[in-house]
């Protein structure tokens, strides 16, 4: 069925053109020949000779030999006596090659649409041209004769019209009566621009005969078709290039090829058109011989040259314009014109004609003459607001300027506000937004406000009056006090206040100036000078108020400045770019890192990992395989993002959040640990200490021990009484140290590299972890430890410390395994030190959950907060440990051994179950 359908489909298809030949198996698709390599061939496959005899070459099998072997050899005489009657007249076609007669040849034999049958619409313009030519030709109606002589090709429409009584030259439409007298242009009517030439101002033909019988009607005037040919070229308006038909065909007979001959130009062009169209009928036009299609255009050597082209008489170059085709001024012609005539140089555009009268010259009015004593400088008269105090000054000023007038209304004309003027003029109020808040208030409220205001003013006045005598003192003092107060307030903020860019009183320059001075003085701390900057014309009260205002402004400026600066930051990218190249991963905020560094928690927090693409060559030179063989990228991968994309601001990625979490945790820890946490074994101060009292290593050890005792301050002391103290036993020191060391040095590889012997110490590190999860241990052991602790606890003297350390040293070796276990468990902090977060620890943990650490758990249950103290101890022990380490590597190794022994002991009890419980904590830490 499918085959059938396909067949039917094929039948339905209509195919155009010739199908491509199906490709053979394994045949390659030919590359298309590029344009520059394509060659022109004729029908016979000959290069560059695709012309026949009449198109520049002779080809008829025999190249350029008229189609015969012999070429132009004269044929033998053949008597044509018998054939005389049948003698044929040879046309040009007889001498043509078949190529000339082909479709693209010079005389195509194929049937083509001729002018006669072509659409008439095309000929419209030609018709029109004919008509114009007929009208303008030197002998009017020449073309009419042409029509008579020439073959008539009257369209049906014309024929119909003729039958209806239409005659050529008439318009179409009902006959009209012609108005007897033409209206003279009204002299009163102004004509703007140039006057129209007389010929165009009115219909021309029928103006001559004044006599017109009443009963005679006329056909309407023929309408000159408007030339609506669009302008396709880029020539200047009215420019006509060389007409090739004119140049090649008929130009020889006539004058020079004058392109711009003014009035007669159009007609000649139309005539050319006519001729051209007639010449077309010959069938052979253009350059026949000599120039091949691919050859350079020769000079038209075959064009006939007539004598008339040359000047035969020496004279002024009168006939030509001497411009040789330039669209340029016609000096010669314009010279001859009368002086009064309007001069127009250059060619007049089609459709335009020269004005007969020049347009009226523009009257120029001279500017008003300046008064003799005028000086082009403006003086500002001091503006004085009408006030009780200023009144006199104002008057004096006005007197001086001679402006004083008795009429107050006139006097204050310029001082009036818009509202006042409106009132005077009796205009209605403008409907617009109310100028003040008061407008929005109800009448009653306004009244009330007014009363309040008046009351307060009166009160103020009364005060002033009552304090008249001491006022001068008081009033001076109070602003000073205020200034003092303000100065205190503004102490730190004055640096920025009053800087040039903040102008709170920009509207009132005087006030602004005063304000600036005020701030300056305030900054310098001058007390008395504050008053100076205030307006002396003001009342004391006003002054005080202004001072306060200034202070407030200064304060406000400060705050706004700081708030603004805190909200803006410098642009990262240029404004005019929409998209920016953003590195896909960015080193995230250093704030968290800073914190981490301060806490010496290097590792995850301070590390940023990025994908980075090395250069291929770089890899080659490093002799390393390229990590991303497929990528062409080099460097950090970049992402083109919209500049304002949200993602640009979301650089805080997952690790950072974890960091903050971690840091929070860390901070907590840190708070609880406070100092001891920071002084790690790398601390300098410890070393210094060590050096200072270099009595012995033991002393320092003891001291650190004593520190341990001191640090858990209150709770330890309390618990010492009860007998269940959290303070780790002194004996534990070595194990402690081991423990701490383990926690402090995470990467085992390093140590492995250095100390080959340490193989099983890993386990010890994990014991700390196990502590948290394990069950409570028997309490007796704790009590045991406390007993031991008591000794160092009671006093922190060096001597005591010594003894303690001595015991501890001995204890390491002498203590029973159970005791050691206990010790180990005791000192394992509930938490890993922050630095310990490597992946390795996890593994160890699983292997080494020990029994003895249960006690730890128990303790935790009892008192949560104590664990923190534990941590403190741990740090202390770390210190201790360091000191011990300083003794030498032997010691270190020894301790390791100890720890290893511990771990082996402890790891006897398998605790696989707890590992799962551990993981979240572990995760958190990461």
């Amino acid at each position: 069925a499918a085959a059938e359908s396909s067949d039917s489909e094929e039948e339905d298809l209509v195919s155009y053109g010739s199908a491509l030949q199906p490709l053979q198996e394994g045949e390659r698709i030919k590359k298309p020949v590029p344009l520059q390599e394509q060659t022109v061939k004729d029908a016979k496959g000959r290069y560059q000779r695709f012309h026949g005899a009449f198109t520049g070459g002779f080809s008829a099998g025999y190249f350029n030999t008229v189609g015969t072997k012999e070429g132009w050899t004269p044929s033998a005489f053949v008597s044509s006596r018998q054939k005389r009657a049948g003698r044929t007249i040879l046309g040009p076609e007889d001498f043509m090659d078949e190529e000339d007669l082909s479709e693209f040849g010079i005389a195509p034999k194929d049937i083509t649409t001729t002018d006669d049958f072509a659409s008439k619409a095309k000929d419209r313009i030609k018709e029109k041209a004919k008509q114009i030519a007929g009208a303008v030709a030197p002998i009017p109606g020449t073309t009419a004769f042409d029509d008579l002589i020439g073959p008539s090709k009257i369209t049906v429409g014309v024929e119909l019209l003729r039958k209806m009584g239409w005659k050529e030259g008439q318009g179409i439409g009902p006959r009209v009566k012609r108005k007897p007298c033409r209206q003279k242009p009204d002299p009163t009517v102004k004509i703007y621009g140039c006057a129209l030439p007389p010929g165009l101002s009115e219909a021309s033909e029928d103006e001559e005969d004044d006599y017109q019988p009443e009963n005679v009607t006329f056909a309407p005037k023929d309408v000159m078709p408007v030339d609506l040919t669009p302008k396709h070229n880029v020539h200047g308006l009215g420019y006509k290039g060389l007409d090739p038909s004119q140049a090649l065909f008929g130009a020889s007979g006539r004058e020079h090829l004058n392109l711009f001959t003014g009035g007669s130009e159009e007609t000649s062009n139309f005539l050319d058109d006519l001729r051209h169209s007639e010449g077309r009928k010959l069938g052979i036009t253009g350059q026949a011989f000599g120039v091949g299609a691919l050859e350079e255009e020769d000079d038209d050597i075959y064009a006939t040259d007539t004598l008339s082209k040359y000047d035969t008489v020496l004279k002024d170059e009168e006939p030509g314009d001497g411009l040789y085709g330039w669209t340029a001024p016609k000096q010669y012609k314009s010279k001859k014109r009368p002086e009064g005539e309007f001069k127009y140089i250059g060619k007049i555009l089609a459709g335009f004609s020269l004005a007969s009268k020049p347009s009226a010259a523009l009257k120029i009015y001279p500017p008003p003459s300046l008064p003799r004593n005028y000086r082009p400088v403006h003086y500002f008269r001091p503006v004085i607001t009408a006030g009780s105090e200023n009144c006199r000054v104002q008057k004096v000023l006005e007197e001086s300027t001679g402006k004083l007038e008795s009429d107050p209304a006139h006097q204050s004309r310029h001082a009036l506000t818009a509202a006042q003027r409106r009132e005077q003029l009796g205009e209605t109020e403008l409907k617009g937004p109310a100028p003040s808040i008061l407008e929005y208030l109800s009448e009653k409220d306004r009244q009330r406000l007014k009363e309040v205001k008046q009351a307060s003013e009166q009160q103020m006045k009364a005060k002033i009056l009552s304090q008249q005598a001491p006022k001068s003192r008081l009033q001076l003092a109070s602003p000073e006090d205020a200034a003092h107060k303000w100065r205190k307030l503004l102490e730190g903020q004055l640096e920025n206040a009053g800087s040039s860019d903040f102008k709170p009183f920009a509207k009132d320059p005087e006030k602004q100036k005063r304000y600036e001075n005020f701030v300056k003085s305030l900054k310098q701390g001058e007390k008395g000078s504050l008053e100076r900057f205030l307006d002396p014309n003001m009342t004391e009260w006003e002054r005080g108020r202004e001072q306060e205002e200034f202070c407030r402004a200064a304060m406000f400026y400060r705050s706004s400045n700081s708030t603004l600066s805190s909200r803006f930051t410098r642009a990262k990218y240029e404004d005019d770019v929409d998209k920016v190249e953003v590195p896909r991963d960015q080193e995230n905020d250093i704030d968290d890192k800073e914190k981490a560094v301060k806490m010496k928690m290097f590792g995850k927090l301070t590390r940023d990992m990025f994908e980075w693409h090395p250069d291929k060559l770089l890899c080659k030179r490093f002799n390393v395989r390229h990590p991303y063989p497929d990528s062409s990228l080099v460097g950090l991968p970049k992402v083109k993002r919209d500049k304002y994309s949200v993602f640009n601001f979301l650089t805080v990625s997952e690790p950072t959040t974890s960091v903050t979490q971690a840091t929070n945790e860390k901070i907590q820890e840190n708070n609880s640990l406070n100092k001891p946490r920071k002084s790690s074994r790398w601390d300098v101060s410890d070393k210094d200490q060590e050096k200072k009292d270099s009595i012995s290593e033991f002393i320092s050890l003891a001291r650190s021990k004593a520190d341990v005792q001191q640090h858990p301050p209150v709770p330890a002391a309390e618990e010492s009484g009860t007998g269940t103290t959290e303070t780790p036993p002194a004996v534990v020191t070595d194990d402690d140290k081991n423990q701490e060391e383990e926690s402090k040095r995470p990467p085992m590889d390093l140590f492995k590299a250095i100390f080959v012997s340490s193989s099983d110490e890993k386990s010890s590190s994990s014991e700390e972890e196990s502590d948290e999860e394990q069950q409570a241990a028997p309490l007796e052991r704790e009590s045991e430890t406390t007993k031991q602790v008591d000794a160092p606890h009671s006093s922190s003297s060096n001597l005591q410390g010594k003894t303690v350390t001595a015991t501890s040293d001995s204890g390491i070796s002498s203590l029973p395994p159970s005791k050691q276990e206990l010790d180990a468990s005791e000192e394992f902090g509930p938490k890993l030190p922050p630095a310990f977060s490597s992946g390795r620890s996890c593994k160890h943990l699983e292997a080494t959950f020990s029994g003895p650490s249960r006690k730890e758990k128990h303790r935790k249950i009892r008192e949560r907060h104590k664990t923190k103290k534990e941590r403190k101890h741990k740090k202390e022990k770390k210190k201790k440990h360091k000191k011990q380490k300083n003794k030498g590597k032997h010691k270190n190794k020894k301790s390791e051994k100890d720890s290893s022994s511990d771990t082996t002991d402890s790891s006897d009890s398998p605790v696989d179950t707890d590992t799962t419980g551990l993981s979240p904590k572990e995760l958190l830490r990461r």
Partner: protein
Amino acid sequence: GSIDSTVRCWDCRSRRPDPIQVLDEAKDGISSVKLSGHEILTGSVDGRVRRYDLRAGQLCSDYIGSPITSVCFSKDGQCVLAASLDSTLRLLDKDTGELLGEYTGHRSTTYRLDCVLNEQDTHVGCASEDGRVYFWDLVEGSLALSLPVGQGVVQSLAFHPRLPCLLVATQGQVTLWREDTFQPEGDPG
């Protein structure tokens, strides 16, 4: 490593004058560049130690905080030593970036001073602005030796890769230090 905060890699075999790769991740001048077999370690004044791992195609950037003056790999290639202008040397784990050790005692606040690891990775050394060269025990972090070299700043420091042999430059003077038992070859005694 350049002050324009780039590290440029040129190909010595070709004669191309332009670098084959520019590592422009640093935000400030590069003070130190070290190479291992497949890594480029850079210390920058922006307080970061960047390690470009060519094999893994990764960039590790460790934030130290203080401007880095000098970086170097340990001999075993596991650690990175970074000296910074807060008078501290830090030994970082190369893989995790964790702090393994911190070494202080010398003075380095202004100058770009070198830091070294000795031939066995047991000690860490650093030049100082007080005319000494300090050596610390790598593991314990304790000051093992402070070697008075001159009066001025010890400008440069280099340790022999295999022998206990230290080359120190200070104030127009280069000194070579060997262990006590060392007998110069040409020396008859």
